[in-house]
């Protein structure tokens, strides 16, 4: 599998490197599919900043409607290389929303 590059909703080009995917994510977090990674980056349900690191961004995908992990959703951790580029660090499934500051969709005031 060659490196894959995805255009994210918030304007980044994020690369999923072959070694990261095959050697680490797919072998250690096999519950995440490549399709989920792609969809979470390109059409996320939420985008959050890392709870403390400005150089990280988290893309939350849509929840799974079926299957053994129904109701969970993929979280893709992206390392920001610069203002326009990033690299997938890891990905996993969670059932609780990520606690970082939500960047998208924008929070509405009340």
């Amino acid at each position: 599998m060659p490196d894959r590059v995805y255009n994210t909703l918030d304007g980044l080009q994020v690369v999923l490197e072959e070694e990261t995917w095959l050697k680490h994510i797919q072998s250690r977090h096999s519950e995440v599919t490549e399709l989920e990674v792609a969809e979470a980056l390109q059409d996320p349900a939420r985008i959050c900043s890392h709870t403390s690191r400005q150089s990280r961004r988290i893309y939350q995908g849509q929840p799974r409607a079926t299957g053994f992990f129904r109701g969970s959703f993929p979280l893709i951790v992206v390392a920001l290389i610069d203002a326009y580029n990033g690299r997938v660090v890891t990905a996993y499934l969670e059932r609780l929303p990520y606690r970082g500051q939500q960047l998208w969709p924008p929070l509405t005031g009340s």
Partner: protein
Amino acid sequence: MASSDRLLELDYDERGDVLYASLGAPQAALSYEIMEDVLLRYVPPNREVIGVTILNFSEHYPVPEEASLLSMAKSVVEELLRRYPLVPEPMEEDKDMPDEQESLRSVTIRKNPASYLLVATTTAGCTATVSATYDFRGPLLISNPIIQVGQAITKDDSR
């Protein structure tokens, strides 16, 4: 505990600075962020922790020499597994919530990490603003004594 019979397998992604650890061969699982960058791995409905993933590992656990990273990683993971043999209790998301509790799902989280201001919408369309304290290790606590997680908010309970 059965987990003590399984060997700890470690994998360190140096480029991403991610440590992956599993008891025995890695398997598909859900993750639970017990603290920043520390994920406990489990296969519901069983709450037993079967692995740990740590992001930004070298920043959280700096080592003086690269050669000792895996030995430190082993110690770190073993301590985490000792401290957290099970994921915290409120792993009830796989249970269907009664319809009257659906309104409590419509919350907007305003602030984090220590406290959240929640706006909960009732089924009747009324809104109630409550203060809550979120303990990452436990359930979401609602400081308002009237409104509790899982309790349907009626018009009389709103403020």
